[in-house]
Structure formats: C-alpha cells, structure tokens
C-alpha cells in the first residue's frame, strides 16, 4: 500500500533520516519505534508532504507522491494526527469534524447553491455525529475544541482523522499522556479502524501498547531503520535493545 524507498533528509549537518526504506501492507497495523530524535516524526512529515525529502521516493498505491503538497496527499487518502495535538481551537467539536469530511467548500458553490450545500451539510453532520459517538464525544458536540480536556482532544483528533475517510492513517503518538482507561479505549479504536479496512502506521513510545496492537514493527535509530519484524522479533533484536539501553 505504501512503499518508501531510500528516503533521506538532513537539516543542515543533522541527518534526520538516512536511506530509510519500508513497505506497509494493506490492512495492517505497523508501529514505528525508536528513541527520541530517531527521525520517526520526520518520516511522517516526509510521507505527508510537510517536508520535502533530499533523496528517495514515496509510493502510495503505485503512485509516486514524493514532492506533492500536503493537501494533495491528504486528498489521495493519507490522513495523519500530530504529536502535539492540532485541533482548530476556536471551532466547535462538530465544526472540527465537518472540516475533515470531504465536502464541497469551494467559494461559489458553498456561498450560492444553498439547497445543495444544506443537503450535503445534513448528511455530513450525521456522519460526524456517528464518528463522535464512536469515540464517545457526542455529548460535547457544541463545545469549543479548546475547552476539551487533553484526553478528549486526543479522541477528537482521532475522530477527525477518521472523518477524512483516508485509507492510510499515520498516528503520531496516539497514546501519549493519557491514562490507562483511555489507553485501552484508544487501542480498541485502532483495532476497530483496521476492521473497517484502514491501514495504520503509528509512532508510539509505550511498548506494551505497540506490542499488543501492532502486526509489524519498524525500529529506527539515528535516522536509520535498524530492524523490521513482528513485535516478538523486535523485542529480542539486539540492535533495538542497544538503541534503547545504550550498547
């Protein structure tokens, strides 16, 4: 589904990502792990077009998406969440959701064709409500995103990326800073996403979480991919242990 070949990116003298390559199969949950500064988020930014790679190619569904602008990549069906939550703070929960649902918001159609827009809007609200119910935020529909608690904001960001109707979801630390109950809930949500046909690539530092829900794990260190395999293989891999514990 997604294939990354020889991806490299440096910031000045810092080689953030070096010759990174991996492939993600449709319908799998893949974990991307590594110590802080290993280049995981940079890989996300490269895939989603927020950064341009120095070298290498990113192939999504046999289409080369390297150097495409971020909004085009999102429209092709790659959704992402951010390490630091990025909601629209002064918009309501519902508005945040409606923004993600692909709809006609061009100036002339949305300002002039009232009836068509109203009908589409109604359908979209129903869809948004369904997803909000799915994550348990349906009671907060009209609250401003900035007034939600941290956990609720995390859930809203997940619900919003689901609303995008993307096939490949890139989740950057979906379980950071949440309590155990919410952690389980998020793990459940991610498994449900796969059931509904989504492919997921996630960055996470919580190893229990990664080992429990991922089919495959990619380990990175100093911008290089150091291991790839099932969670069990990764747990025993010497290079990974060295990277985390310092060998």
């Amino acid at each position, binding site marked *: 589904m997604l294939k990354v070949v020889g991806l490299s990116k440096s910031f000045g003298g810092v080689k953030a990502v070096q010759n990174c390559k991996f492939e993600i199969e449709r319908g799998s949950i893949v974990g991307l792990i590594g110590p802080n500064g290993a280049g995981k988020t940079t890989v996300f930014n490269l895939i989603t077009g*927020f950064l341009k790679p120095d070298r290498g190619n990113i192939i999504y569904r046999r289409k080369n998406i390297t150097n495409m602008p971020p909004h085009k990549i999102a429209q092709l069906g790659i959704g992402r969440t951010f390490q630091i939550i990025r909601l629209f703070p002064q918009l309501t929960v519902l508005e945040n959701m409606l923004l993600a649902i692909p709809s006609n918001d061009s100036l002339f159609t949305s300002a002039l064709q009232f009836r068509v827009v109203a009908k589409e809007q109604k359908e979209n609200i129903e869809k948004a409500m369904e997803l909000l119910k799915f994550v348990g935020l349906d009671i907060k529909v009209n609250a401003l995103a900035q007034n939600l608690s941290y956990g609720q904001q995390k859930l809203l960001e997940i619900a919003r990326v689901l609303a995008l109707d993307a096939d490949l979801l890139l989740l950057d630390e979906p379980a950071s800073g949440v309590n155990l109950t919410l952690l389980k809930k998020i793990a459940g949500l991610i498994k449900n996403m796969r059931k509904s046909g989504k492919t997921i690539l996630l960055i996470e530092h919580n190893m229990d979480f990664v080992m429990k829900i991922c089919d495959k794990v990619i380990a990175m260190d100093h911008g290089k991919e150091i291991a790839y395999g099932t969670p069990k293989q990764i747990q025993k891999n010497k290079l990974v242990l060295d990277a985390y514990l310092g060998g």
Partner: protein
Amino acid sequence: MSYFANILVFICIYGILAISLNLTIGFAGIFNLTHAAFFGIGAYTSALLTLTGVPFWLSFICAFLIAAIFGFLISLPATRLKGIYLAIVTFGFAEIIIAVMKNWQGLTRGPLGLPGIPKASLFGFKFASTWEFFVLAAVVLIITYVIISKIVNSPFGRTMRAIRDDEIAAKALGKNVMKYKSYAMLIGAGFAGIAGSLFAHYITFIDPSSFTLTELILMLSMIVVGGIASVPGALLGAAILVILPEPLRFLYLPSSIVAAIRQMLFSGILIAMLLFKPNGILGERRLLLKKNAKSSWFIKKLWRG
C-alpha cells in the same frame, strides 16, 4: 438635515470597508494592511473611468474587479508569510500603491487629485442630494453585509476560520490553504474597491491622502471596537467611530486642533478596547467564552502568526 445624511453615508462606506477588512483579518486571519490602498484603487478606477465617459454602474463594477485583481496578486506572495512578516509585506504594498498614485501624474494628476468626478447616476437617475446618495450607499452596504455573512457562514467560511486557527492541521485535512487565503483577499479587496467607488462619486474629489495609513488605522480601530470575526460587529464599529468625533465639530476649535484631537480620540479608544475588551463589543461570540483569556487571540495572532 443633510448633515445627518452625510454621517449616514460615511457609516455605509466605512461599514463596507470594515466588514470586508474583517473578512480578511478576523475570519481568514490574514493580517492585511493593504486595505486602505484597495479602497484607493477602487476610488481611482471608478473616478478615472467615469471621467472618460463610462457610465457609473460599469465603473462601479470595474472598481470591484480591479481592486479584486490587485487583492489576488498581492495575496500570492503575502499568504506565504505569517504574522509580523505578512503585516510588513502588505504594508509595503500599500505604500507602493500610494506612491504610484502620487507620482503617476499623467494618470492620477498626483497630489493635486482628481476634481469634478460626476455624482453617481443610475439609469438616468442622478443621486444628487445627500439623502438620495445615502439610499444608494445603504443598498450597497446591505448587499455587502448579506454576501459576506453568507460567505463566512458557509462551508467555505468554516474552512477559512480553520485555516486561521491552524494552518498545518488544515493542510493535513486536504485543504489547499493558499487558495482559501487568496479568495479571502480577493473578496475583501473587491468590496474595499466598491467602497472606494462610492466614496469617489460622493465626495467628487479624490487625492492620494485619503487612502493612507491614517485611514487604515481608522478601519482597524473599527473592527477592534466592533468585534473581530463578527460581521455585525464590524458595522457597529464603523458606526461608533464615524459618530464619535462628530461632537468635536461643535466646539468651534481651529481645524488643525480638531484633526489632532480626532487622532488622539481614535488611539485612546483603540488602547482602551485592547486593554479591557480585546475581542471587541461583538467579537466572535465563542471567543468570549474562553474565561481565562489573558491576552486577546487577536494580539497573539499578530505576533505569532
């Protein structure tokens, strides 16, 4: 009585300017300091065309189009910047436009200005008296108000506000940020252009000094007083700032002193509003719900971009 009509006409013209400025600053979050220059482009376009014999309605439409085109062109470099950098670039453009008005003497007669602009007329009817002109200005104001309200409440407007809140998140949701920002600038500039056309055909004389920084600060004060990201707020702000300095006329002071007092009055109001009610009287209702807002979103936006 035409004294009151005169005030009302100015409320209409400044209402259109404040509403359209609020579209770019309040809703789209583009700190646009070129607005007064768009107002000038509209005024000069309309005045020059009518002086060569083009009917008022056509030059009125051209004022919209030409200003909108300039708005779009300026948005191309400007929307790639943020915060204080964006403010400087848009301000620079405004100064360039004023400099052209002052120095392209073959076209604009420079600082001498353009006298004898015909009064507005439509299908043979001449809006000669102040009250008649007020009716025309009010109709244009209502049209502007309705169109911009429709835009900001539509899905397009929602995307615009989302981009204002977080550009990166908007991109990640597949929104072409540049496109929305350019449209916001284009529409904002276009409406400033028609305000300029009304102004030119009402005063019947224009010169570059009517479109400088002082005017821009007046427009900014209107949306700060009335309310950031609020269409009725912008109109209210325009009304307040047009009416407020009027009593000064009856103090029979020398005009140089009155002008200075006016400026001080506007600055004083601006400072007082930013200190005590930073989102304005009718500022986006939901922004006011934030209880622990120490400094205004508006001020933060300006500095952080």
